[in-house]
């Protein structure tokens, strides 16, 4: 078995390639379909998250406007900062993924690992910190904005009960997202990309 044989066999595989090859119009149709690439998936997820967050944010805004004008304006300033920050991140990300596949394989893998790793970290920050913090802030805001005839002690009790009910629920949610969703969707893929990159970068 010489190397020449392998090259000859490799070259002779044009027939099968030809038989598989569809017409150019079919190829064009295929090329316009939705990408299954992990970065495109992340890109789509960010879009979905943004739309969902916008709806939630607007609903909260409407509720606050009805409740307290001062809280509403404070909320609006906070919102503008968050939107501007998210928009910048989104622009950088979309610019980055457009050219990632045209780079040298090692450089492209580095980008994949960086972007996917960054996205996983971002998801974890949202799940570990933003979700519980948002829940607690919501409880406190709700209790302060609409105290009714409750005394301070009763407000604290209300927040305490809300936390006691909500925190176990959040813990299950965090466990589910971390163990199942992130690991299943991105974690294993991230590990495999990292391994390929490490092996390629290793000098032999």
């Amino acid at each position, binding site marked *: 078995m010489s190397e020449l044989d392998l*090259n000859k066999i490799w070259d002779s595989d044009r027939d099968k*390639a030809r038989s*598989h*090859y569809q017409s150019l119009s079919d190829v064009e149709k295929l090329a316009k379909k939705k990408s299954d690439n992990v970065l495109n998936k992340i890109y789509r997820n960010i879009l979905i998250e943004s739309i969902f967050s916008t709806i939630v944010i607007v609903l909260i805004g409407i509720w606050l406007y009805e409740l307290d004008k001062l809280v509403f304006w404070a909320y609006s300033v906070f919102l503008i900062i968050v939107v501007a920050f998210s928009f910048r991140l989104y622009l950088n990300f979309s610019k980055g993924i457009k050219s*990632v596949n*045209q*780079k040298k394989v090692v450089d492209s*893998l580095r980008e994949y690992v960086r972007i996917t790793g960054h996205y996983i970290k971002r998801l974890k920050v949202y799940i570990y910190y933003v979700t519980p913090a948002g829940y607690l802030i919501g409880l406190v805001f709700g209790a302060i904005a609409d105290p009714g005839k409750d005394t301070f002690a009763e407000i604290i009790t209300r927040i305490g009960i809300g936390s006691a009910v909500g925190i176990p629920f959040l813990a299950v949610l965090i466990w589910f997202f971390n163990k199942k969703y992130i690991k299943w969707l991105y974690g294993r893929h991230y590990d495999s990309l990292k391994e*390929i990159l490490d092996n390629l970068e290793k*000098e032999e």
Partner: protein
Amino acid sequence: MEDFKSIVDEYYPIIYKIGRSFTNNSADFDDLYQEMLIQIYNSLKSFRAESKVSTWIYRVALNTALTFNRSDKKRQSETHTDNWERIDREEEPESAAADRESKIEMLYTAINELKKEDRAIILLHLEGKHYDEISEIMGISQTNTGVKIMRIKNRLQTILRRMGYE
């Protein structure tokens, strides 16, 4: 769009071979083949001709293949329905064409046993690319490319011998 057509028309064997080398059943192959076309189509708009078209095509196709990810659910359901290896092993090669066909399948099966990054390197070597071009596509040094090729070739030959390749 004329550019896309002429590129695919010229380089479809490469796209096909990369697809075969990175998948082991026809369903995954179809998905990867389509994904490579999507990436070439989308990347073409920002192609600035800083490198040769062939180098660019190899980069886009290999980057797509290396980062191609199948979900377990899909893989499990497809493995039992269609498999390149199984279909071709059932055939008894009698003519020279069948013998050649069998050797091609054996070569793909052997390549499939290599690590993903090794498949990319050996594929470029089998395509007749020189070390400097492989190094340019992969982004590793020429010395490292040479050492890796030697190691992968030995591994490939061991696999092929085990499979009864003569």
